[in-house]
């Protein structure tokens, strides 16, 4: 080559990680609001599953009061699972996911942003809808308040752990069912503490300790799950 061979000019402008994360959240929110039906589906599912119990078991007040918390928690868990299948699927199909992995930022933070967007779009609406269903299941005011609190702490954990499963089953046939099989066992502690805390509150016991424990779960999930999710994402994309 000659001495006046061209020299590459490297890109010098860098964007902060926070802005990159915000861009991920904003894009997810925006494209979800263009397709509002998808936002409504988990909520409708939540509502319908809860309705099945009075119809299928018993509409008696005593039964509903006793089982109501469990029903609401299980239904919330199932509708989260249902929505998780879409977490990466559309991004995977249109290539957005590849572009996300190629962003010059730590991938686990972008995974965290995706999980946050998912929670805002499904977990939070479930928490907001829960009191209405709680009243329909004849739960007491105090129980409903504690229930919402446990859901508020618990549903982000569901989104964070679920994101790992969604990344692992990316691009697989029957990914949705597979996702549930992988993730349900990991959801059990959250379910136990979510319902257990409400049960304790109904009996009049102090629940601060249990809530703190659930918060500890949340912190643990926040710190560990994005790393596992990022690793899983790289593996799945590598294989596609």
């Amino acid at each position, binding site marked *: 080559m000659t001495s006046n061979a061209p020299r590459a000019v490297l890109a010098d402008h860098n964007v902060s990680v926070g802005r990159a994360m915000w861009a991920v959240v904003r894009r997810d929110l925006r494209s979800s609001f263009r397709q509002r039906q998808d936002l409504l589906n988990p909520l409708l599912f939540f509502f319908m599953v809860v309705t099945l119990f009075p119809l299928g078991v018993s509409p008696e007040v005593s039964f509903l009061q006793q089982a109501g918390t469990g029903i609401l928690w299980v239904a919330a868990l199932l509708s989260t699972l249902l929505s998780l299948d879409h977490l990466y699927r559309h991004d995977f199909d249109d290539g957005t996911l590849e572009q996300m992995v190629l962003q010059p930022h730590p991938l686990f933070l972008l995974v965290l942003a995706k999980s946050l967007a998912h929670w805002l779009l499904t977990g939070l609406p479930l928490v907001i809808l829960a009191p209405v269903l709680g009243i329909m299941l004849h739960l007491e005011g105090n129980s409903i308040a504690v229930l919402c609190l446990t859901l508020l702490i618990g549903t982000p954990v569901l989104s964070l752990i679920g994101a790992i499963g969604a990344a*692992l089953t990316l691009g697989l046939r029957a990914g949705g069912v597979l996702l549930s*099989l992988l993730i349900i066992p990991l959801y059990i*502690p959250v379910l136990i503490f979510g319902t*257990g805390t409400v*049960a304790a509150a109904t009996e009049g016991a102090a629940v601060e300790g249990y809530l703190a424990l659930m918060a500890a779960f949340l912190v643990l999930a926040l710190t560990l799950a994005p790393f596992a999710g990022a690793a899983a994402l790289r*593996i*799945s994309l590598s294989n596609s």
Partner: protein
Amino acid sequence: MWTLFHKFGSPKWFFGIAGRLMPWLLALGLGLLVAGLVWGLAFAPKDYLQGNSYRIIFIHVPSAFLAQSVYLMMAVAAVVTLVWRMKLADLFVQAVAPVGAVLTFLALFTGAVWGKPTWGTWWIWDARLTSMLILLFLYFGAIVLGSAISDEKASARAVAVLILVGVVNIPIIKYSVEWWNTLHQPATFKLTEKPSMPPEMWVPLLLSVLGLYLWFGWLACYRMQTEILRRERRTRWVRELVRAEGH
């Protein structure tokens, strides 16, 4: 050091070593297992509280022990897979996952059958059995995910991530299930937790635990060898081996 590591990680080296170890593992394992079980079945004294049904302990406890340690071993192998990408570690996970699931099932089954004469019911939502059930689910997850991904390397790495997530969760699951159990039924009578066991009981138990571990070692070696034969088709030594076995 690094070359040594690679040497120990080479499938060919492992195949040879495993072949030499396996007869010993099998003989010793079966010997100890039979000794422990016969002793436990016929010679150990009757338990004054539960009568003869306690003899199930000699298979329940080894199965449960092994079921849990196999998952832990898989987790260690998963770390090796992800960090050093050692072939043997992938092979190990793939070879032993179904074995672990069967052992977990055995622990559950024997626990349930034990429950019938002890509590008068086949299944009880006791903390131990419930955690075992969840462990079985975790095994299923790993097996199903492994078979759903066709590319071997990607499959091994995805399963490794899942197992690591699972192993972080196991203590949390255990703790929460125990807490849940006390919430719903105050602890009454626990399987296997006896204040003091006479040597006539714990020695055969120890023998059968050891025996089952060794037997597992044999089976794991055998299954890993099979996997090596399947995957290393292109290498010359496997070809020669296959050719030799054929005649």
